[in-house]
């Protein structure tokens, strides 16, 4: 009984990592540009559909690299064409814009690929299980975890240890000061949008073999991702990381206790509690221009 409970907790923790890829991008784009990107889930869906198109030609390995890059490219076009007009304006406007964008993207996928879900399987070489004593885990998920963890560490390094990261962080806190120093934030905005949206695309590729692929799949993932960002605190890198793991953990515990039907409701309850007692999120910093 106890070992089963521990397995559930562990599985929940690992589960949380998938939310990270989506939530990190969401948080990054909001922090720097103030855009609440409701279309983030749509980019995840585009990543998955691109994989179905590309994998037969360049293999799944090729798609893991190519799809996120293409999604990032679409992200950059969207940033230049749309997002940049809404920086530092009322967040309601960007909310409306990205909501519309999400619907347009979903409808386009429906028109191009049809509404019925499409099939895509784990490549034969990656199938199978890993046994760690009592704990059984799929080999594919282990790879997924490895890629996700690498991305998170890479992103952290980029933000904390490079000149690029320093400008982005300064831009988040005080864009006017950055401007006064003679640094244009524009290229940084482009890079951050490409990076954040590319990460959503990567999540799409990685989850395509184990989740159902249909045009509305973005909606399924965007809600928990938003919950993670809200719990973690806007603008906080580690906040999002900790929140994603916590959401997975709490889910795992709920299921471990036999309360499977509550496993989705419980993460909203968590968000409610955080909003009641610490509205800026667990690790959220005060960002003056949003208050």
């Amino acid at each position, binding site marked *: 009984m106890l070992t089963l409970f521990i397995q559930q907790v562990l599985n929940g923790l690992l589960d949380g990592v998938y939310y990270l890829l989506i939530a990190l991008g969401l948080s990054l784009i909001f922090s720097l540009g103030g855009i609440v990107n409701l279309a983030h889930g749509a980019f995840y869906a585009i990543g998955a559909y691109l994989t179905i198109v590309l994998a037969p030609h360049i293999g799944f390995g090729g798609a893991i690299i190519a799809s996120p890059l293409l999604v990032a490219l679409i992200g950059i076009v969207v940033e230049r064409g749309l997002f940049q007009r809404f920086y530092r304006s009322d967040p309601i406007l960007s909310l409306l814009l990205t909501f519309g964008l999400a619907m347009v993207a979903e409808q386009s996928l429906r028109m191009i690929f049809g509404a019925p879900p499409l099939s895509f399987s784990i490549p034969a070489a990656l199938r*199978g299980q890993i046994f760690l004593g009592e704990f059984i885990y799929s080999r594919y998920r282990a790879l997924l975890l490895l890629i996700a963890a690498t991305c998170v560490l890479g992103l952290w390094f980029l933000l904390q240890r490079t000149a690029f990261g320093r400008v982005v962080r300064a831009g988040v806190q005080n864009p006017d000061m950055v401007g006064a120093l003679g640094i244009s934030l524009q290229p940084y905005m482009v890079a951050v949008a490409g990076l954040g949206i590319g990460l959503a695309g990567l999540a799409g590729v990685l989850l395509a073999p184990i989740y159902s692929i249909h045009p509305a799949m973005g909606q399924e993932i965007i809600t928990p991702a938003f919950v993670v960002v809200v719990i973690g605190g806007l603008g906080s890198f580690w906040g999002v990381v900790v929140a994603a793991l916590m959401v997975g953990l709490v889910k795992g515990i709920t299921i471990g206790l036999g309360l499977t039907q509550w496993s989705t409701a419980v993460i909203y309850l968590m968000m409610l509690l955080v909003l009641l007692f610490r509205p800026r999120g667990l690790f959220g910093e005060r960002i003056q221009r949003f208050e």
Partner: protein
Amino acid sequence: MTDRQPSKFRVSRRQALVGLSAGAATGLIASPSLILAQTPDAIRYGHLTPRTGFLGPLGEYGVMAVDLAVEEINAAGGVNGRKLEVLKEDSVNPQTASTKAERMIERDKVACILGEISSASCLTISQVAARNKTLFVNTGGNSDALRGESCNRYMFHVEHQNSMYVKSCGRSLMAQGLVKGKKWFSLTADYAFGHDLLKVAKRFMEANGGQFAANKLVPTDATDFSALLIEIRAAKPDLVISNLAGNQITNFLKQYSEFGLSFPVAGFGFDTALAWAAGKDNFGGVWPCVWHHLIDTPETKKFVAAFTKKYGKPPENQAWGDYMAVKIMAQSMNELKSTDTAKILEYWEKGAKFDVMKTRPGYFRASDHQLMSEMYTITALPAAQVKNQWDLFTSSPPVPGPSEDLEVIATQGDEAVCRMS
């Protein structure tokens, strides 16, 4: 909140324009019925079915089938010499579904309402239909309750009830020795349909000497089944039973194969689109089916050919349901030379027979308005034997067999509790 305050946020004209046009564009795409022209002397049906959400992909098959049926009916002279027109909308959820049903009846003057997949939406639509004395033909809601406690005079069911699904698949499981004295681990979709299916499955299992190792209620928006797979592995059941719905089944099948579990799988709720979405590497188990594209009858072959020609893929069972509903309605109106609700209702209750593309004709049972027709049990083929992306399974002969009454798989005696009001 009544006094107007000067706007806190200055919105430039340009920003407003961009926002508005994005909103308008999505509005147009999201509600296709708004841009449909309405012909004044046409006979109009209303079609409501989920096109978004976890049942959306199935609803889309229904919509494709309706378009095909309307095309064929109009090519053959329409209904009572008038053109047939169908207003189609996304029912979204039970509340929206009833609002749209009301509008279709009152504003658009539809002759009847067809469609739906969600049992919860079926219930709200049927209430609107009964209040307005308009026929509602349910093409995809399986819950027994709709034919039981919640039945009503104006609702008919082309889709088969949960009991029929459970009893047909159950027969096959009994033949394989997977019921008597066996432990089942079941996963159940946590909404009206799932709860109803679980109730029926439990009744079947207990009557035939099986027992539960566990039953888990799964939220309808859950996408990850890894936690449940860990539990299944620990419980070591003789059979894993899916009472799941829509995309949940695909997610479950994909991840079941990913985790490499080897317990036999069967399900009581099923749609072939979900098997297609899982793909040959992941689809497994024994499932009941109200109709599928491999049935060997001339009508099925004709329908599959026409559908494949128009859409480039075979129809799945939800397509059959909506196609049948349009055809049965149009055929009845033509035979009666009338669109009068009372006349059609009486005609159906008296047992009019319809070709339902199977080996014997179907009819509506007067006691609960359930369409009586044969069912099938399908079994997944091993990946190596699969020749294309559609023909992933083999089918049983029609259930019940030719010498048996169609009633044997439906609710009987005290299982059937419908009192028409």
